[in-house]
Structure formats: structure tokens, C-alpha cells
């Protein structure tokens, strides 16, 4: 069974540009979570999608947005990129909203120059 897959693995952008990151959850998982892992910091919760709807978002500005498609895959968009957006972006999926068991992808490393 395939795990959570993310693309691209690496992405380099300049300040002010937009970045789009993609995530495919494990088959059968309807919830997708996005996290930011900046250097020296723990995972910071960004967004949660379930059944095509945004269910919750973390303490991030509106330029961080996304969506979930009918096949449960998801996309994270970061507009007006800033240098401090450079980080590893992790996607996770889960079969249960309250199990605490998240299945993570390997992440997409975004570098903003």
C-alpha cells in the first residue's frame, strides 16, 4: 500500500512569488493535515482538510491556503512568499479525526531566496 506522497521534493522560489505543494493521502484516508517545520522549530500546524472542506487552520496568515480535491488529495498554496517561509512542509493523512495517528509524507522543502 502506498504511503503519503508529496511533490515536489524541493522547490526554490524568490520573495513575492507563489508556491504550490501537493499531497496524496493514503488510500481510504479522508483527512489531510499540513504542517510547517522550520529550522529549530517543531512541527507547526497549518491546515486540516476533511471531505473536501477546510476544517481548521493554525496561526498562519491568509496567504497560506489550500484545498482538497474529490479524490482527497490536497494542495497547499503560499502566496507572496517571504524569506521566513523557507521550511520543510509536511503533509499527513489519517483515517480517524481523533486517533492521534497521523501518517506523514517525506515533505517538500521550500527555499525562498
Amino acid at each position, binding site marked *: 500500500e502506498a*504511503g*503519503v506522497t508529496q511533490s515536489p521534493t524541493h522547490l526554490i522560489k524568490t520573495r513575492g512569488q507563489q508556491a504550490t505543494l501537493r499531497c496524496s493521502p493514503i488510500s481510504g484516508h479522508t*483527512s489531510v*493535515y499540513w*504542517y510547517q517545520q522550520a529550522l*529549530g*522549530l*517543531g*512541527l507547526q*500546524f497549518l491546515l*486540516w482538510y476533511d471531505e473536501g472542506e477546510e*476544517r*481548521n487552520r*493554525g496561526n498562519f496568515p491568509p496567504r497560506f491556503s489550500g484545498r482538497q480535491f474529490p479524490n482527497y488529495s490536497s494542495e497547499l498554496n503560499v502566496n507572496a512568499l517571504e524569506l521566513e517561509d523557507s521550511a520543510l512542509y*509536511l503533509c*499527513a493523512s*489519517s483515517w*480517524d*479525526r*481523533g*486517533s*492521534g*495517528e*497521523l*501518517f*506523514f*509524507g*517525506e*515533505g517538500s522543502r521550500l527555499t525562498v531566496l
Partner: protein
Amino acid sequence: AQSVTQPDIHITVSEGASLELRCNYSYGATPYLFWYVQSPGQGLQLLLKYFSGDTLVQGIKGFEAEFKRSQSSFNLRKPSVHWSDAAEYFCAVGPDISNFGNEKLTFGTGTRLTIIP
């Protein structure tokens, strides 16, 4: 709001030696507690979790953790480490059952474990 601290950024252990990774949390009630591992080139994987009951929790790969309310700790242990245990370990805390949702997990900053021969 809950918080979690992993005091050790990097730990080096000899293969075959015992291991203890520290995790301290802050939360007003009894939290839900988790340990995740991130092996090189892989996503985070759940090692074990504590919701209630027996304070000593067994996980995968021979790991265990003990919830100590008096010390606000949930330390991860393994009696004998293997070279394949080299990875980054993350402790996470969530609110109690009345408030819990996966998106409410708070992760620590991680402890990198290096294994030497």
C-alpha cells in the same frame, strides 16, 4: 493551551546501550501523549501513544514510554538500541478526550539520535 519540551537536541548512544529520551509537557488536565520517529528519508511514524490507563506504554520497534503525572513527563526508553534506531524523535501532546482532535497535537522540537558502533 498545551506545550511540550524536548530538552535534548542531540543524543549519541553506543549500539546495544540503553536509551532514554526526555519529554516534558505542560497542560492543565491529563493530556494525550505521543512519540513519533522520523527516520532518514522517511515521514514521521507513530511509535506509541498514551490516552489513559496503564502509565507504561509499549510501542513498536521495542520502544516504551512512561507517563509520570507528578513530573509532567513522558520519557521514551529502549533497553538496547540498534543502528537502525538512528533518527529524529518527536514527542507530541494533545488535549484531553473532551477536546481532542488530530489537528490539536503540539509537537516538540525533536531529539536527534545518533548511534555509534
